[in-house]
């Protein structure tokens, strides 16, 4: 019993937000990631609507409308569902993801014209989502264990929305070999542990994309969600903006809402 209590104390110590002196850069980086994750725990479930605006290098814009639902499963891996409302030819198409803490995610795609649920091969994490600059791994729920971390520095947060705040700047490297990235540099504000900006580097260490997050709002008195996410691809000149709205938390979603069979009635 004593040892259980002791190990509990140890866990609390290593996860403490305070970045104590004497920690290595790796420990400081991990502690920041763990604290950001801890602050987002307990959302239970959420729904939201989003508009995805794809912008070509020449400035042409195409817009897609989607709905998203998420279910938190502490220590088991979250489940999420994305349903397309437009363009009209893919209306009702739905993507179901089981984010597994260990190993590949499970994914199914529902094609309403055929009433068919197709399982997707688990290895596709780095490919683009619906022709956008976001890959599947960018949109998947971020699991602390999927990266190694390193603290880089502290500096004023980038972007006007955070101009009076100081940010942690940490580097994280994906453990998963199938990730499309060698590393990511993440700016997290020190006040609320919100992600402000992420620089993505490709497998050849070249700057690939930058994600800028803004229009943060707090929901249910706790959870911060960005209303605007802009992903710019430096290599192609294309960008994708996600505009989020109608966020709701604790709406009472169940595991049975996140099964392949349930995809046939998501419309």
């Amino acid at each position: 019993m004593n040892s259980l209590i002791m190990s509990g104390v140890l866990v609390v110590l290593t996860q403490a937000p305070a970045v104590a002196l004497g920690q290595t850069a790796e420990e400081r980086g991990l502690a920041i990631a763990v604290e950001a994750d801890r602050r987002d725990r307990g959302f239970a479930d959420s729904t939201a609507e989003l508009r995805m605006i794809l912008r070509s290098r020449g400035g042409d814009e195409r817009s897609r409308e989607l709905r998203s639902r998420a279910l938190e499963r502490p220590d088991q891996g979250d489940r999420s569902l994305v349903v397309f409302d437009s363009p009209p030819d893919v209306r009702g198409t739905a993507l179901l993801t089981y984010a597994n803490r260990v190993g590949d995610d499970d994914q199914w795609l529902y094609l309403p014209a055929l009433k068919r649920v197709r399982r997707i091969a688990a290895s596709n994490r780095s490919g683009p989502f619906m022709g956008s600059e976001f890959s599947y791994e960018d949109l998947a729920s971020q699991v602390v264990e999927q990266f190694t971390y390193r603290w880089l520095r502290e500096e004023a947060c980038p972007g006007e929305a955070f101009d009076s705040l100081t940010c942690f700047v940490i580097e994280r490297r994906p453990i998963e070999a199938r990730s499309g990235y060698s590393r990511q540099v993440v700016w997290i504000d020190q006040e609320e542990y919100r992600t402000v900006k992420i620089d993505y580097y490709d497998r050849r260490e070249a700057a690939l994309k930058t994600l800028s997050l803004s229009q943060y709002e707090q929901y249910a008195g706790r959870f911060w969600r960005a209303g605007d996410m802009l992903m710019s691809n430096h290599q192609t000149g294309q960008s994708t903006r996600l505009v989020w709205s109608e966020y709701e938390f604790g709406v009472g979603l169940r595991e049975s809402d996140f099964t392949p069979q349930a995809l046939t009635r998501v419309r």
Partner: protein
Amino acid sequence: MTIGSPRLHHAFRVASASLVFLASSVATSAQDAPEWSGRLSVEVRGFLVAPDESGQPRMLVSPWLQPEYYRAWRTQSLLVVPFVRFDPSDPERTHGDIRELLWRMVHDTWELRAGIGKMFWGVTESQHLVDIINQTDVVENGDGEDKLGQPMVSVSLIRRWGHLDLFVLPGFRERTFPGEKGRLRFPLRVARELTQYTSSAGTVHVDGAVRWSHVLGGWDLGLSHFRGTGREPQLLFGTTNEGESVLIPRYVVINQTALDVQTTTGGWLWKLELISRGGQGDRFAGGKRFNALTGGFEYTFANVRGSGRDVGVLAEYLFDDRGRLATTPFEDDMFVGARLELNDVQTTRLLAGAIVDRRTGATFVSLESGRRLGNRWTMNLETRLFLGLQGDDYLFGFRNDDYAQLELSWFF
């Protein structure tokens, strides 16, 4: 099938009965606005070889329309999907159908559906052995992917151990076949007016089905049983009163038990469908219980060299232990295929495949590709080739019907 047929009237009766029930049960619920949408398409099909018989087309322009009405209330919804196609060369292909007219009620642990519905079971790509609820609308497309609406009352139980779906299927839908002036048909006309049933109840035989399905880790499992009029007719040689040699469809009451399994590791997707079907003391092929399977894999090279493109390679084996007596062309065949998805803004994709008969070498080739144009239009290209068919092949009548087709669709 023409719009005025008695079978469709039967379907309408089942559907309207459920509508009355619906109207009385939702009168007081919270309501969302009704939604109208749909698709209008035109197909331009060119056959590579001149027809065998005069009157059959070399070139074909055929439009089709499928509007959709949807309305949701708190726990209930109604979906109505009529369909109509015009084919200037073939009155049998000019047809209408109620694809769906389905009322649905959803709760935590169960779901109830009534009306005309569509249900897909199965995992493989080259053929769909396990899929049995809906009749195939053969005149639409020879690939068997298009289905006729099926009258049904169905309940799903949602439990920790999986989903259990129970179906009562009142009213049988006959398979459609191209008419004399149509192409992609058997050498003899299928005389639907002489259709035979082994059950004295004929088209009003009430069929039943049950299916258990579950996700277990990386595995998708489905186990099902169907009892009722088989969807796949035997085609018997016969003669009409006028002395015309024809094929007479004969529908047998069957018992079919089926398993479908799918699993994934890394880029691999493994798929298997197995059926065991018994007829009722019938002296033809259906008389003896037989087994058939489709099994294989799909391997995906995701995001090839960082291009964002996915390339998939597919292979499946198709087997039917009736051998040459099988009522499908695929008794000992290999399917190989490739899938390309560009993952671009237009969702450009290509699927190429060939099914090769291991005994005769006869090969069916299919190429399908498509992309979105702007926001409301899509363009699809389809090519089908029938190569090396021998005189005794099930598809022999198709040997000169290779075609290429362009389809333009507008979504509203």
